[in-house]
């Protein structure tokens, strides 16, 4: 692929160039997935009856209150954990432990402190990548996430946002069919988070892989996802299941201040058990100035 000079292209040339590698996005499906920790009387049911089909190239955000099993679901999808019930399949094949078709972006950067940023990104390259090709790929990815000048730095020498970008580049280095992101921007400040969201959208536009994104941030979910899945417990029994599925209207990048999204945000917050205040006082939510950034 050559750098595009078309002005109406949504991605910048750097992003387009990095898309040179063929990524085949794959669908991922969950069938009756449940997960209980512990055995016998001490068993604690965290997830139950999760049925979800994610199309190739789709971005699905998983929302839910803290401790409801969002991360567990993602870890199961990546083969970092095994479900107690049900199966998860990527492209029709059951997910293997540490499945090579998926890549995980963890909540923490989890960079190896003794390796340079470039060395850490190289860790994500598929096993058996030729040295030269790997190096080219790594430098392209570093350019993509804006870390080209920091390739030789150690993780402790860069900021948290940069480390998180390096972590994203490492996940992308794998050319994953499914990209699993576990609150990847959760630890960042609000502004850096917005930047990272835009970066993720650029990356996705260039390499349209399937993305499962766990987040606790309603706005982030609405900004990034095609669909938002709301996880939560029923009142009378343990184990979280999918409470709501919301198809987010419009195409990305979405206007962060749109009234439509504000309404969806309200619905999702309701689902999370958060009082909207505005509606409770009879003030139409849609006319208030968007709260974001808080």
């Amino acid at each position, binding site marked *: 692929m050559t750098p595009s000079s078309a002005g109406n292209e949504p991605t910048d040339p750097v992003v387009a160039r990095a898309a040179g590698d063929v990524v085949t996005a794959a669908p991922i499906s969950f069938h009756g997935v449940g997960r209980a920790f512990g055995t016998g009387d001490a068993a604690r049911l965290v997830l139950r009856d999760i049925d979800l089909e994610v199309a190739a190239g789709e971005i699905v955000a998983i929302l839910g209150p803290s401790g409801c099993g969002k991360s567990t679901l993602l870890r199961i999808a990546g083969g*970092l954990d095994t479900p107690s019930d049900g199966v998860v399949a990527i492209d029709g094949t059951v997910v293997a432990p*540490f499945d090579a078709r998926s890549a995980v972006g*963890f909540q923490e950067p*989890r960079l*190896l402190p*003794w*390796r340079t940023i470039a060395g850490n990104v190289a860790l994500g390259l598929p096993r058996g990548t030729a040295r030269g090709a790997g190096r080219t790929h790594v430098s392209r990815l570093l350019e993509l996430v804006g870390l080209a000048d920091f390739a030789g730095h150690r993780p402790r020498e860069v900021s948290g*946002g940069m480390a998180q970008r390096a972590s994203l580049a490492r996940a992308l280095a794998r050319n994953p069919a499914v990209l699993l992101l576990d609150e990847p921007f959760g630890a960042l*400040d609000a502004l850096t988070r917005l930047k990272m969201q835009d970066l993720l959208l650029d990356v996705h536009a260039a390499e349209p892989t399937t993305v499962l994104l766990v987040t606790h941030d309603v706005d982030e979910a609405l900004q990034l996802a095609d669909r938002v899945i709301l996880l939560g417990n029923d009142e009378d029994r343990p184990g979280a299941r999918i409470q709501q599925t919301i198809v987010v209207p419009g195409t990305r990048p979405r206007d962060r201040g749109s009234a439509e999204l504000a309404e969806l945000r309200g619905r999702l917050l309701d689902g999370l058990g958060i009082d909207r205040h505005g509606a409770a006082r009879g003030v139409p939510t849609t006319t208030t100035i968007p709260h974001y950034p808080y």
Partner: protein
Amino acid sequence: MSKADAQQRSDAPRTATTPHTASVDREFAAPVTHDGLAIAAAGPLGPSGVDRPERLPGSGIGRQPVEASVPPASSGGRRRLVDRRWFRVVGGALIPVVLLITWQLVSTSGLVPVSMLPTPEMVWLAAVDLAERGLLGLYIAISTQRVFLGFAFGAALGLAFGAVVGLSKLGDILLSPTLGAVRAVPSLAWVPLLILWFGIAEDSKIILIAIGAFFPVYTIVAAALRHVDRQLLEAGRAFGLRGFALFTAVQLPAVVPSVISALRLALAQAWLFLVAAELIASSMGLGFLLVDSGNNGRIDRIFLAIIVLALLGKLTDSLVGLFERWAVKRWA
């Protein structure tokens, strides 16, 4: 990126009524004018980030957050006194020189009889005397050889067993109770057995020194490997590393500092056990010099042996320090 910039710019002039909002506005007012990505660098600095030098790709300033947090006064080109090499050397030599002078004054003043405290000159003459007869060099050589052999065997075995116990659950279950029990035996308790089995030749001494060097290495390495950051291990596995590749990429670099300190401890133990072994049964070596001089009342030679041991111990420790520098550069 530019679209997002415009978005934030449009958000920026919101009325800054609360102090919190004000700080947020200031925080991104500056970076927005630069490369859009630079704003991410302000991430962990928090609200105080405004006062710090902004990290921009390509610009040399403020590359390391650690440096950036140092007040500019001390980072302005001139190195502090404690960072200078000559100061380190002089500072380190200060106490030995003071001790030597005190020793000289006390021993020559007659406060303490020379049969209790020889003068430095007497010790020096004893050294020259032994050196001229070729004994000092021989004793140092044989003792050093014993330490190095015992240390090499003990440390190698300690690394191997520590790796097995630290990396494999099965190895831990099978080996650690037994090794724990063996460790509980005071190492000098092996001496009679070793002498019975191996005689008083080199073998028994080297084995005793190896026992002394083995346990610090084994204990520290096993514990360090067991406590390698699980999150990093999981990340390594998630990116397809397993077995030996996982070991060289994650576990080994993570434990290098522990291995080095284990080796340092083991080396000190090796010298300790050398003297123990040579005190008990030997015909040469620094331990023999100690016990022989004790029997003959040659206090000058006792002092000589102690000083030589101190110098040799420090010297070998410095060698491990050199190895540490190399290993940290190579692995960690």
